[in-house]
């Protein structure tokens, strides 16, 4: 069976498969690059353009009548018809504040544009990948063994929705894998057996993944298991919507001020492009002291209207290094802006642009994740991933910050794991994991990166202005393994037949010791985050409408990597009677 590794990224999608000689091949994906022009490229930009009728069909070699397009052509159309282009669908997929199955993208579209849900957009990307594989290489993705990557910070609902999108796209055998783990798998595959020399028992690998739109941290510990080295993912960070795009935007903003001219969206996009190239040149070792930035105006007349400014090495140092990678004290937490009363329903972008502060926050929050004493988690190795991390200067900056904190607690400095493949590691690593599952290579263990809780209202007389006390019932412990299940028989709940019953749902990425069935007051737990609510409806049929049925909860972690919750009746009317609880409900 063909194995495929798919990196469904916020800004780009990439696919890896096994070549005939067993090597890893990143597949070129045919896509529309401009009107009537198809090209196969290794990266499929995660953009979707909803064509206007005047555009005609967005024809592909395998579909002449398509009304939307995915990939480079869609990304480019985003410059001149931004209200019809969907970007960052993946960030919406993990946004618990909206109903992710409802057609809400693009946000700024006019009334007559047919919108799509974040789930459908992801489905369309994966569908394009499947079609491109079939058209370009004759690979049948439907029957292939597909490893699909998700951010480590994706909660149970976002994972479930990702699988829903994959199934809709016709991918029948999907397994989820956390992106930082995929990056480490790629590194392991590249090192071959030599990795056993690079890592020793007691090592903690910090994976720092800074992509275009998101930043993701994970910690993976090296343990000993029956005399052999074993890897275990011990901590994951929070979902941080902050990445290389923020840096380019900031640079473009600085240049726009220097140009002292109002730019249109087209010019601004050109400026952004120029700033990205300038950033890469200026951050490179031995790069130039200044890079000219030129921005062409829209019309056919190129001369006379083209604007010119420049970015210098000093400016890059000030803007990128001081703005995004400032030196911060041990234990600093990211700054959270006070929330305005009326907050638009946009994406929850990170308030704090400093990646070093987010890293410091992660290490402090996860201080005891690998059994240490604190006050911070002490990584011994660092694996960098993501396009931004291609810059040696930025890697050194982050490593320097980390080693400063480690020195402050008297720990040995951490070393970088060399030989990373910053851009395509996640797709490659997903493939390596797919092959490792077939018994060829080491596996990282870990289970769920969070513990999950259902909120149960206590029985107390109502007091005006005071929220009734809420108990949290642990339904899935931290590190719950794929293929396992647990039942919370002690907590009896009543569900009304025919009426949707909704529960509040919570998760924690630090409460490692709660067993399933543990119950405690929410007031005593500071370290749980509320997730989108969950809902179950008992259908009529065996039972009478309006009856109250006593049930208990059962949780399962599927082999795919998704969490399933069920309401099971204490007195079943038939064998195996149970009802699935839907994750992520939101109006």
């Amino acid at each position, binding site marked *: 069976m063909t194995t495929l590794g798919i990196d469904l990224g916020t800004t780009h999608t990439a696919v890896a498969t096994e070549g005939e000689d067993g090597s890893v091949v990143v597949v070129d994906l*045919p896509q529309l*690059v*401009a*009107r*009537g*022009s*198809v*090209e*196969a490229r290794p990266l499929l930009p995660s953009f979707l353009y909803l064509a206007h009728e005047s555009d005609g069909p967005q*024809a*592909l*070699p395998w579909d*002449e009548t398509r009304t939307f397009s995915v990939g480079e052509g869609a990304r*480019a159309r985003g410059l*001149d018809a931004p209200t019809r282009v969907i970007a960052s669908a993946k960030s919406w997929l993990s946004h618990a504040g909206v109903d992710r199955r409802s057609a809400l993208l693009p946000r700024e579209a006019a009334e007559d544009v047919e919108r799509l849900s974040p789930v459908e957009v992801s489905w369309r990307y994966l569908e394009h990948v499947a079609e491109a594989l079939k058209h370009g290489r004759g690979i049948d993705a439907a029957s292939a063994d597909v490893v699909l990557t998700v951010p480590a910070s994706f909660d149970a609902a976002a994972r479930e929705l990702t699988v829903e999108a994959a199934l809709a796209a016709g991918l029948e055998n999907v397994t989820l894998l956390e992106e930082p783990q995929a990056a480490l798998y790629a590194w392991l595959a590249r090192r071959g057996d030599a990795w056993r020399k690079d890592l020793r028992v007691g090592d903690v690998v910090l994976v720092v993944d800074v992509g275009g739109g998101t930043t993701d941290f994970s910690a993976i510990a090296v343990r000993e298991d029956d005399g052999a080295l074993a890897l275990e993912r011990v901590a994951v960070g929070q979902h941080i919507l902050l990445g290389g795009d923020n840096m380019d935007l900031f640079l473009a903003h600085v240049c726009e001020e220097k140009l002292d001219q109002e730019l249109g969206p087209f010019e601004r996009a050109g400026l952004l492009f*120029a700033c990205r*190239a300038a950033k890469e040149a200026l951050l490179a070792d031995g790069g130039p002291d200044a890079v*000219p930035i*030129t*921005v*062409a105006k*829209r019309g*056919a*007349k*190129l*001369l*006379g209207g*083209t*604007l*010119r400014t420049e970015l210098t090495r000093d400016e890059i140092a000030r803007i990128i290094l001081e703005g995004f990678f400032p030196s911060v004290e041990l234990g600093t937490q990211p700054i959270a802006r006070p929330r305005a009363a009326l907050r638009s329903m946009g994406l929850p972008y990170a308030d704090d642009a400093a990646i070093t502060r987010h890293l410091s926050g992660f290490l402090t929050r996860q201080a005891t994740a690998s059994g240490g004493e604190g006050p911070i988690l002490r990584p011994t190795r660092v694996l960098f991933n993501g396009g931004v991390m291609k810059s040696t200067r930025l890697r050194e900056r982050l490593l320097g910050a980390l080693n400063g904190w480690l020195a402050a607690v008297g720990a040995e400095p951490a070393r970088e794991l060399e030989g990373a493949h910053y851009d395509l590691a996640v797709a490659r690593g997903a493939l390596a994991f797919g092959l490792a599952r077939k018994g060829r290579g080491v596996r990282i263990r870990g289970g769920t990166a969070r513990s999950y809780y259902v909120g149960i209202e206590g029985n107390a007389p109502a007091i005006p202005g005071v929220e009734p006390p809420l108990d949290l019932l642990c339904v899935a412990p931290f590190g719950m393994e794929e293929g396992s299940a647990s039942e919370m028989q002690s907590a009896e709940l009543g569900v009304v037949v025919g009426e949707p019953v909704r529960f509040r749902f919570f998760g924690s990425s630090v409460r490692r010791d709660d067993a399933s069935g543990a119950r405690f007051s929410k007031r005593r737990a500071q370290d749980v985050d509320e997730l989108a609510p969950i809902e179950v409806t008992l259908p009529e049929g065996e039972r009478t409408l309006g009856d109250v049925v006593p049930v208990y909860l059962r949780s399962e972690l599927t082999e795919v990597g998704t969490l399933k919750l069920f309401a099971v009746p204490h007195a079943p009317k038939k064998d195996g009677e149970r009802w699935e609880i839907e994750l992520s409900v939101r109006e």
Partner: protein
Amino acid sequence: MSFPARLFFAWACFFRVLFDGAFAARANLVRDALPPAPAPVPEPVKEVKEAPKPEKRAPASIDAALQLLALLQREGRFVDFLEQDITTFPDADVGTAARVVHEGCRRALHGHGKVEPIHEAEEGKKVDVPSGFDAATLKLVGNVSGKGPYRGTLQHRGWRVVGLSLPEGLAGFDATIVAPAEVEL
């Protein structure tokens, strides 16, 4: 076949063809049926990388040329630049515009194939050209006379495009539109 073996075979055939009528007729049939001998392969020229020999010449496609033009316009405003009268603009303006065109067209070109020099020596240096060099990759200029090997000054390193892949044009689209007009609503 070694030379002595060939000599013996030729000798034997010579006499049999001369004196054995039936053998001569059969040999003639075989000779006619033989595929044409492959052209002698010229010795590769030293210092000049061997060009991959094209299997057959691709039919000249105006579509591919238009796709390339559209690509250079899209990424580097190539047609805009060529079509504007630049005579009245000061060099600074031309320079600024040239950066846009250079950066974009270079990105487009490098993103779709590799351009590499044919001769590795530095321009202006003396180089040796053996006799029987590949005339497709190297051209003698100046006082061209005599038989090889030659010695001369490298004037231009030459360029070769490797693995160029252009966007595939779709049926039903007019490739002569290298950039549509744009009207903002």
